[in-house]
């Protein structure tokens, strides 16, 4: 039955291991290190001066409302480059109920061929 001793055991994955507690400790140490390093930084930063303004090649900063990127525009470059693949995927997803059934039949036929060939061996 339930063995609570296994809480602290390490998960063995054949060739490796995974222990979240060690990971958490190391992550905490890393954050501590970052904090320490950060505290060595320069203390010249002042709010509400020119330092806080972003530099857009000398152009004026846009309004906040216009700075927003829409959800469908994120990863625009990636989607544009992989357009051929996405076009194929879009073609497959017709949204037609008959096609859904057709795919079921196709998979069934494919499995029939595979299993009958190898099962007869």
């Amino acid at each position: 039955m339930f063995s609570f001793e296994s809480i602290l055991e390490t998960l063995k994955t054949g060739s490796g291991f995974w222990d979240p507690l060690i990971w958490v400790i190391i992550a905490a140490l890393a954050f501590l290190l970052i904090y320490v390093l950060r505290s060595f930084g320069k203390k010249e930063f002042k709010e509400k001066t020119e330092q806080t303004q972003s530099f857009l090649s000398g152009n004026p900063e846009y309004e906040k409302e216009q700075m927003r990127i829409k959800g469908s525009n994120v990863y625009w470059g990636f989607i544009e480059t992989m357009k051929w693949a996405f076009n194929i995927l879009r073609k497959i997803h017709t949204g037609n109920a008959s096609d859904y059934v057709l795919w079921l039949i196709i998979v069934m036929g494919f499995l029939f061929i595979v299993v009958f060939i190898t099962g007869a061996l």
Partner: protein
Amino acid sequence: MNWFETITMHSPALIVAVPLLAGFLTPLVSRINDTVRNLFVLIMLSITGILIAILGYDVLTNGIRTYVFGGGNTVITLPSGLMFHVRIIFEVDSMNIFMVIITIILAIIGIVYSLSFMKKEDGLDKYYTIVLILVTSTLGMELTGDLFNFFVFLEISCITSCALIAFWVHKGEALEAALKYIVISSIAALFFLFALGLLYAQYNALNMATIANAIQFSIIDQAALILIIAALTMKAGLVPMHMWLPDSYGEAPPSITFILIAATQAGLYGAFRVIFTLYGNVFNSINLAYVNLVITANTIGWVLVALAIITIIIGVFMALIQTDFKRLIGFTAVAEIGYIFLGIGVRLASKYVQYSGSSATAIAFSEYSSIALNGSIFHIINDCLDIGLLFLVAGAIYYATKETSLDKMGGLARNMKYTTVFFIIGLLAVSGMPPFNGFASKLMLYESTYQLNPIITIIAVLASILLLAVFVKVFYSAFMGPEQQKFKEVKEVPKGMLIAMGAVVVIIIIFGLFPNLVINNIVQPAADALTNYTTYISKVIPGVI
């Protein structure tokens, strides 16, 4: 016999009977008062949960337990000496317990969520009735030891989920998704029934253990296997039969989607049970008598691996170009299903024959196969929790803003702080970032797959990274960015929904920090129950082998 033993003995039947009774009592109870009805539904599901806990304790301690409906013996011996297995039988081993625990967790949290989410809707008595019957059918699928009973529960689950997907009747898209879902799943269920007829014609039995004991893998059995596998993987959402899944997940009310995930996993459980127990001679046997079936098992394993890889890739890529929040999560759910099937495929493909000289001496599984199976089973529960949490967050955003399109959202993190935190945790968990639960199971899958074929692992890892990218996109466009004028008045969602999401988050963190607690106590026994199909047969039909 004291009362505790009595309850344990009858709990397999009661687990199905209590939600069913509650489901049909709900229309009558809701004539009194809404609050009474809500309490009633919650209490009935809690009773089911307690029964499941009792049964789980017993099964994990003492092994397989069976329950015969109508009492008496399952075996009738005719004067001529023929033995017939009559009566419907429920059998419970660790795998069943594992699935049932998932289902009841999802059901209770889903009900708690819908108490606040659906408060303003009409027709709630029918809603709760159908939800309870859906839970009943899911539990029934996961507990039954009879193929035809499985089919009946499959159809009930199909009908009830269709009715729930179309719950928002005023939306045309919801009706469309429901119709597509019921068309494909009723056809798949009919194929399942056809396969069942084939098996019945051969072995004169519908009991899974009896058929598993007698199975020959003749050409008719192969046909039955293909029909059943195709039907059940369709129900689980394997590419290219996945297209109903984003439709229906996206259009159903989010609280329903959360429970629908459990119903989908029940189809997956059916595939597990059919592959590993019903056709255990083919896929699980290490008996030299079945040496000619090694190639078949490996081929089916490779086919499943290939389909799983395609599933992962298509799921992730399609999620990348979605603009609807819930539909996007639906496609990532498809990708997650692919990871589960990857584990099954690796397990099946890892069977080999040991030769000494020219003669075969033994059949064996490679060492990584058990890790693949463990990872696959562990990933079921992680998938349910992570994807479910994201759907709940999507529902919370819909509740607060009445928007599902990502293009129209933005800057919601200012007003919905808790929801944002929950979303970040769900995002990290679903994309397999340490130290959350998705990482542990995915690591097991990666390591075992790497020993089968490194390229597959690379693809799977890349897809997992893309999954993170997809959710970063969602996070950026929905929660970050400047404040929107129209969302100034948006408030945090009610406490009930926060409690539901918080409960899922707590489970995710516990599973993430102590993966061995889950693996040693639930996952490993479930994997053992699946692989030891002879134990299953001998416990369910004693005296036959």
